[in-house]
């Protein structure tokens, strides 16, 4: 621990000396958000280094209309909704999946897409809807299970496909002059799949310094030193600092699976609106698995909960504590918006970890 502490102190000192002008960095991975808070790293940053959380939590960026569609599917007779735990408590316009479950609807928590298909195999009288959310990290597993279901002719398995693509949302953020990013900590696990080349437009077209980082305190501090160094030298690029898991070319097999099952489509993001080609739509070949088509449900434009600022928080334009609802009216026991529901949401992380007290590095 002492050795780690010394190394962190060294990194903190270097970061302090290197940061000679205001620098705005965004992290776009829920695991980074939580790790930065849990490890008390913010108090080690120099005052001129601002780190904001971006749209890195898949549940948080899922649009209100998409949540409403998932909730309405749960109300259909004979349907079993299977999804990841974080999705249950996200409030829809009228209800949530957890409320529907309390009313006796069949809503089940799974930890893998494979389990959703297993339910369909074991319970042939139920029509299973797997509510699939997530970025490139999760899309390959959904694709793999869709191919299994298709091969098996599993007629009682469908997917409400809400997968989204990370590079297009980074393009939208990079192009927004009001957000004015100098650097990005790129999402480690998404990069495992994508590799490095899909991010190269960020330094080349937008002058944004980038680093793919691991999740430990040292990894994150090193990544910050790296992006600050790039900015000082005026040479933004995509640095790879998570080489234990991220290969230059990414996971080609996983990307091939994504391409076989999905094609780019427009997608609505909470707070960011409809972004062109930022979603993974099911290819026509797999339309029989599309829950929206099978159950004749559509995703409508709906407004977020009144007073909720999750959209602004996800763009890094507002800190969670600046939202009028934060803490008293919106907290983990009674969340109003998704950023307070998911453990990776920035509002939940601010609530859990930013309540004063000593942090581990200053003893």
């Amino acid at each position, binding site marked *: 621990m002492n050795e780690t502490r010394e190394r962190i102190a*060294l*990194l903190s*000192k*270097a970061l302090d*000396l*290197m940061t000679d002008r205001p620098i705005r960095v965004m992290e776009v*991975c*829920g*695991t980074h958000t939580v790790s930065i808070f849990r490890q008390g790293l913010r108090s080690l940053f120099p005052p001129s280094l601002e780190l904001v959380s971006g749209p*890195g*939590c*898949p*549940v948080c960026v899922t649009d209100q209309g998409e949540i409403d569609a998932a909730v309405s599917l749960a109300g259909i007779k004979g349907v079993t909704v299977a999804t*990841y735990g*974080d999705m249950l408590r996200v409030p829809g316009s009228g209800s949530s999946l957890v409320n529907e479950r309390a009313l006796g609807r069949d809503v089940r928590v799974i*930890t*893998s*897409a*494979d*389990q959703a298909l297993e339910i369909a195999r074991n319970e042939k009288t139920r029509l299973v809807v797997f509510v699939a*959310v*997530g*970025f490139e*990290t*999760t899309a*390959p*597993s959904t694709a*793999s299970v869709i191919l299994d279901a298709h091969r098996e002719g599993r007629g009682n398995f469908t997917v409400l496909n809400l997968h989204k693509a990370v590079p297009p949302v980074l393009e939208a953020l990079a192009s927004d002059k009001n957000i004015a990013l100098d650097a990005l900590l790129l*999402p480690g*696990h998404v990069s*495992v*799949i994508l590799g490095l080349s899909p991010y190269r437009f960020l330094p080349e077209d937008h002058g944004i310094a980038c680093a793919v980082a691991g999740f430990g305190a040292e990894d994150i501090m*090193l990544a910050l*030193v*790296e992006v600050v*160094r790039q900015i000082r030298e005026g040479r933004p690029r995509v*640095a*790879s*600092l998570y*080489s*234990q*898991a*991220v*290969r230059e070319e990414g*996971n080609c*097999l*996983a990307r091939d*699976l994504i391409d076989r099952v999905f094609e780019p489509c427009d997608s609505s993001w909470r707070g960011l609106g409809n972004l062109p080609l930022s979603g993974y739509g099911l290819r026509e070949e797999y339309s029989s698995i599309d829950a929206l088509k099978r159950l004749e449900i559509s995703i409508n434009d709906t407004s977020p909960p009144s007073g909720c600022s999750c959209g602004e928080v996800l763009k890094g334009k507002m800190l969670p504590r600046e939202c009028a609802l934060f803490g008293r009216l919106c907290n983990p026991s009674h969340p109003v918006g998704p950023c307070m529901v*998911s453990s*990776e949401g920035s509002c939940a992380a601010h609530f859990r970890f930013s309540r004063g007290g000593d942090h581990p590095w200053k003893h």
Partner: protein
Amino acid sequence: MCLAIPHRIIRLFDDKRALASAGAVETEIRVDLVPGLEIGDVVLVHAGFAIERLREEQGQEIEALWEEVRRMAGIVHE
């Protein structure tokens, strides 16, 4: 949801499934996204699927970066 946890492969059932452990917890995982795994390999598991085999070596970029950090810290000590 974004969480991925390193697991060690204990048993390979077929080309799609394996038993893997993270600490004391043993779980059945899907391995079809990472072909050619062997018992003892450490993989990153996300939502029940191995997404990559982990390597132990640290990249050259990190070593070069530590050089830079030490150089900066050297300036502090002067």
